[in-house]
């Protein structure tokens, strides 16, 4: 097990978000430590994407506090999140098919020398980055269109690593991938953890979650529905938390008391 720091890299305290008449998030709590993979799971419409977007600065929060390294911060724009060190890899990969791997990795932050693209340095750094992340692709000089879905996903994740972020958010990274490709991406997630990054992984796939996550945070109808240690929790327990099979007065009370206890003890 990788060492987990005492102060979480990111902590959400009682975050709420409302869109018109819809209460998308209610009093959501979430903690992510360095070197820890937290899976964020929940049914469709549970608020996973909204939560991620509040962290990424796409939607500012209405209520609550976002803590970064223990300090309360304001994240109002995507730029704020990026400058804190939060990198988000969205589901649609946002890569340009016609540009090669190096070009995509450095898109929007090209290295220049006397105003001219420094292709040599970019290619060297790209190779170095891909090597440290053990990403295999045929060549860094072929267009993204030539790569498989898994390879594209790894390139997208590698691209988020260029800014040396402390927290990486992966939105459904394995959604459209085959078995082998999913394994590649999960390997990469593990390497991110090994390098000490905090990772939030959104997934629908319980197998993936069990494979790489340390903790599972379940959202249901915009509220916390439990945070589980992956090692000590069965898949059924997580699924019942997602579907709400455990959602009755008794468990709600239990969850409430445990979560307040947990906070008090920290």
């Amino acid at each position: 097990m990788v060492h987990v720091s005492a102060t979480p890299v990111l902590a959400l305290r009682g975050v709420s978000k409302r869109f018109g008449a819809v209460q998308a998030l209610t009093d959501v709590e979430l903690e992510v430590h360095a070197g820890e993979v937290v899976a964020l799971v929940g049914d469709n419409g549970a608020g996973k994407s909204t939560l991620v977007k509040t962290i990424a600065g796409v939607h500012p929060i209405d209520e609550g506090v976002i803590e970064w390294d223990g300090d309360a911060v304001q994240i109002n724009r995507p730029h704020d999140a990026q400058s804190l060190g939060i990198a988000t890899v969205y589901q649609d990969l946002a890569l340009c098919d016609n540009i090669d791997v190096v070009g995509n990795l450095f898109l929007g932050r090209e290295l220049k020398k006397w105003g001219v693209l420094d292709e040599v340095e970019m290619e060297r750094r790209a190779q170095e980055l891909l090597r440290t992340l053990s990403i295999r692709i045929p060549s860094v000089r072929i267009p993204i269109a030539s790569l498989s879905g898994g390879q594209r996903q790894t390139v997208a994740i590698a691209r988020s690593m260029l800014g040396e972020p402390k927290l990486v958010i992966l939105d459904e990274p394995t959604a459209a991938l085959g078995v082998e490709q999913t394994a590649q991406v999960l390997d990469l997630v593990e390497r991110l953890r090994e390098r000490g990054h905090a990772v939030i992984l959104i997934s629908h796939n319980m197998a993936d979650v069990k494979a790489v996550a340390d903790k599972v945070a379940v959202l249901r109808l915009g509220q916390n529905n439990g945070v589980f240690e992956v090692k000590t929790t069965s898949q059924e327990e997580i699924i019942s938390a997602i579907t709400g099979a455990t959602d009755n007065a008794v468990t709600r009370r239990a969850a409430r008391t445990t979560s307040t206890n947990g906070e008090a003890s920290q």
Partner: protein
Amino acid sequence: MSVDKTSATPQGANTVENTEAAAAAVTAVDPRLLVREQGLAGYFGEFKRKLKAGELGSMPVVIGLIAICVIFQSLNSNFLSAQNISDISVTMVGTGMISVGIVFVLLLGEIDLSVGSVSGASSAIAAVLAVNQGWPEWAAVLLAVVAGAVIGALHGFFFAVLGAPAFAVTLAGLLFWLGFMLKILGENGTINLDSDGLIGKLTTYFFSDVAAAYLLAAVVVAVFFLTSFLGNRRREAVGIPSRPLSDTLMRTVLLAVVAFAAAAMYNQYKGLPLATLIFLVFLIGTDFLLRRTSYGRKVFALGGSVEASRRAGINVTAVRISVFAISGGFAAVGGLFLASKIASANQSAGTGDLLMNAIAAAVIGGTSLFGGRGRTWNALLGVLVIVSIQYGLQLESIAEPVKYMITAAVLLTTVVIDSITRKTQKTAGRA
């Protein structure tokens, strides 16, 4: 764990790497792919692979050009005469310049239908200012080009900011600037330019000194060799894949043969044409802009995925407007060359088949209509094809109607080749 170097599986690669460094256990390069043999066999293998994968690039148009030369030369031995080649080189510049602007717009996956009218309007502006208003010609030329760029930027504004389709915006531009040109040309409809003035000289000046053409060829070849050689040295120094020296030499020799052959041809007639020199300078400049600067990278990115570009922090609106401004600017430059050729600005400027030829040239040269793929050199190759056919048919005294039909057939062939290669590329996973 055995070190099995013959194994082609990723595991095999792992174990080999393991002996070197335990931390970086896996190679970044997939061992299965893209290993190229060196030397001639390598070229042949690469060629076959590209053919199969549908990565033809400019190959069809180069083959087409050679075919055109062979056919017309066998029909009429004057086709490859020094005079004819010189004439083609000068005539192509007007349409070619407009086509360079079109390449930029096509890279975005958009279209600019106004370039013909804008070129006519700009030449009219230059003529009115220089002849009727008595401005110095350099100022008139400068203002005409700036006007072209501003007109293009205006189209870009409607497209990028207000979200109107570029097709419709530039179609409106086509009509408006045609009307504008007719209005400022006034009653007469024709303004004759001083054929010894700056605009006149654009297509009539030749560097009669034989040294000029050879010097240019030598400089181009030397610069090409030095940049390739030094670039490869730098790549070797930091340990990333580089071209072998034999490869660089081969390309340099090929370029040298073409460059010196052209120079010798020009020198047999009047010498290096100024128009061709300016065209080459613009081509090299725009190629550099597109492939070596972050601005060019942004243009390609927009042609690939607008959303990805936006997320990468690219100012999509600004790039779009600037591309249309470039298109308008090049239309103006092209218009000046066309006006220079007939030594006047008249009502038929920028009309007829000019627009279609400019777009066809970009596409024939290998620029994709679907965006994100192309180089400004495509404009040169495409316009060479179109103008060569025109001159070849003229030598044979074949009438105008047939010329249109043959140009149409060439264009259709090119688009079909583009579509088929795209299909092949898709099946080969390289679309």
